[in-house]
């Protein structure tokens, strides 16, 4: 894992459907300035900038780091653009951390964003490579069959997804940056919304958001303020078309979790971690990832959800921030998970703070549930 690395600043924009008042550059700069302010630093203190976002077709700007260099104070510095599908926000944090762990830099600014209002993500996901056929389904249509297979295997009752949708939106009411803040959210409201991709109803899916998230990473000698120490980080990828792969509980997710747990000395994630920010864009992915990440046995994830274990007052809160179900600027969503994990162990999560959180997991996935990025951050120096 190399040299020690810490998160010393976090900045977010208020996630919303349309940020008409700012350009893309203005959006990322807003998050970056907030992260720098949190760290008590300015652009002049930054050695390198790493930018991440999901496909360029989402905004229609190709390789946008060239255009964003000025707004992010990167001129004269190294700048990198990461793209690993939906996991990109997490990967971007790991690429930034790598620069510090490898001893190359002392302070790195990591920024991820999506301005979904510039285009239509479902359309952009539906165009296909030459010589292949389009599924014309978007992300929900792609993942719904995997969810149905999970329900078949596990025997989970049909209302589990509804519980996650309500729980995460209740948490969002405590997070001022969350996009979907729905007063009076309850099961009846979720169940009254249209079925989009069976079994996913409208309120069981993530919104389309404009937003950016930024973090400042530091080497041990350059730490300012309140650090969240990186205890482990890992990425794993597997081929989308491999016939034998399990799309319900992908091996890449299992391996990635095992790697990050080993680095952080975690043997029982439910016991050893205090809070987890996990990429759950469709409600049912909470029980699925509970199993994939080893928080419980196979086919047991839905029981944790049903028992309230993952609620803010449960024994292992998941997505105290409201999660991807409440805010989804796609390219930033992974970094928001990583950043929220850091906020928790820094004790700076505000109304959605999990009391006494000392160690937290940040998780992101992407592509056809084939790209995974995770880190564990802690209040103590590793």
């Amino acid at each position, binding site marked *: 894992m190399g040299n020690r690395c810490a998160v010393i600043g976090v900045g977010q924009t208020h996630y919303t459907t349309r940020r008409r008042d700012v350009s893309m550059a203005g959006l990322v700069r807003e998050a970056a300035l907030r992260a720098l302010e949190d760290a008590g630093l300015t652009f002049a203190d930054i050695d390198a900038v790493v930018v991440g976002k999901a496909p360029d077709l989402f905004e229609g700007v190709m390789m946008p780091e060239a255009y964003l260099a000025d707004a992010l104070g990167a001129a004269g510095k190294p700048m*990198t653009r990461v793209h690993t599908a939906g996991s990109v926000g997490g990967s971007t944090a790991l690429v930034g951390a790598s620069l510090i762990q490898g001893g190359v830099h002392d302070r790195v600014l990591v920024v991820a964003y999506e301005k979904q209002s510039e285009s239509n993500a479902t359309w952009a996901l539906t165009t296909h490579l030459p010589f292949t056929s389009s599924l014309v389904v978007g992300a929900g249509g792609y993942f719904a069959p995997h969810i149905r297979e999970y329900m078949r295997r596990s025997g989970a009752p049909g209302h589990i997804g509804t519980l996650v949708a309500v729980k995460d939106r209740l948490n969002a009411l405590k997070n001022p940056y969350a996009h979907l803040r729905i007063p009076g959210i309850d099961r009846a409201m979720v169940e009254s919304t249209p079925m989009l991709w069976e079994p996913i109803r409208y309120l069981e899916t993530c919104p389309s958001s404009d937003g950016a998230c930024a973090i400042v990473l530091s080497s041990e000698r350059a730490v300012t303020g309140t650090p969240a120490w990186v205890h482990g980080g890992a990425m794993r990828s597997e081929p989308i078309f491999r016939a034998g792969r399990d799309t319900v509980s992908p*091996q890449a997710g299992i*391996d990635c979790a095992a790697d990050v747990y080993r680095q952080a000395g975690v043997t029982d994630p439910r016991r050893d971690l205090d809070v987890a920010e996990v990429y759950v864009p469709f409600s049912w992915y909470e029980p699925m990832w509970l199993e994939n990440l080893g928080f419980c046995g196979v086919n047991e994830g839905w029981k944790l959800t049903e028992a309230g274990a993952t609620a803010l007052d449960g024994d292992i809160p998941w997505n105290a921030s409201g999660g991807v179900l409440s805010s989804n600027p796609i390219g930033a969503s992974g970094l928001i998970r990583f950043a929220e994990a850091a906020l928790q162990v820094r004790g700076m999560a505000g109304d959605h703070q999990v009391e006494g959180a000392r160690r937290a997991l940040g998780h992101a996935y992407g592509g056809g549930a084939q790209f995974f990025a995770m880190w564990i951050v802690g209040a103590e120096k590793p």
Partner: protein
Amino acid sequence: MRPVAVAAFAQTTHTDHDSGLSEPELILPVIRAVREQSGLTEFGFTCSGSCDYLAGAPFSFVSALDALGAWPPIQESHVEMDAAFALYEAWVRLQHGDVDSALVYGFGKSSMGDLREIMTLQLDPYYLAPLGLDQLSYAGLQRSAVQGDFPAIARRSWESAQTNPYALKLPEPVETAPITDGAAAIVLVAGDLLHDRTNLAYINGIAHRIDPHYPGMRDLTRSASAAAAATAAGVGKGPVDVAELHVQFAHEETVLAEALGLSGDTLINPSGGPLAANPVMATGLIRIGEAASRVMDGTAARAVAHAASGPCLQHNLVAVLSRES
């Protein structure tokens, strides 16, 4: 820094047209070749560079994992940049000390669309892209500001390419890099994997820097970021026998040679450079591979490789390679 060396390099025989191969089919032979050259079948880290807009579809890098046969799952990342920047990420990853090998690859089929107009989409979408300047118009702005014998650069590149079996067979010298489909791969090794290998090109220094985006913010006759990257990579610490430069337009060689402080004794682009084959997103990585090849075959004791991104050489990466760590 921890010593890291290029242990293998392969590229496709590039074409000026779509040969009917999908991206995974394009990559597969070069991956196989660097596995054979390096004797490694698995790698501690894998990183690639590609661009969705060349194929006109999101996630062009996803199917590449099928070509790798990434099973069991691998530690892997991707940059939406030239694969030279993926190599930089891999070099950084190897600095951690826990993995000793990395596979880097890049690929691009610029024949699939109108590359010149596609590159317009890289510009500031509010203030620059609407002006409609395509890649050639932008390069023309810079060319008109730079003094040099550009036809001579084109001619020398074309002559050099005659002995490069991977380059396009162009009928005459060109000052603009041709539309090209192709791919390339490199294997980096460190730690114990450096032992018992004789044919290595060590990366003695590698760095990259970006300039402001807006041409009005820059002196287009110079490249401040290339000069800064060259200083950080240590280009000036010794003589440079060979330089492989990411020259997509002949005048860029003039700008880069000055920025890198190259003397008249340096052989520039003995492969013919991008003016002889420009498989976008692999072109920069090929510069590193070509420079490493010169070090490995003994024709250069010390070589420099350069990769660029962004309009008018906005973003520049420089690496120094030699036989010694």
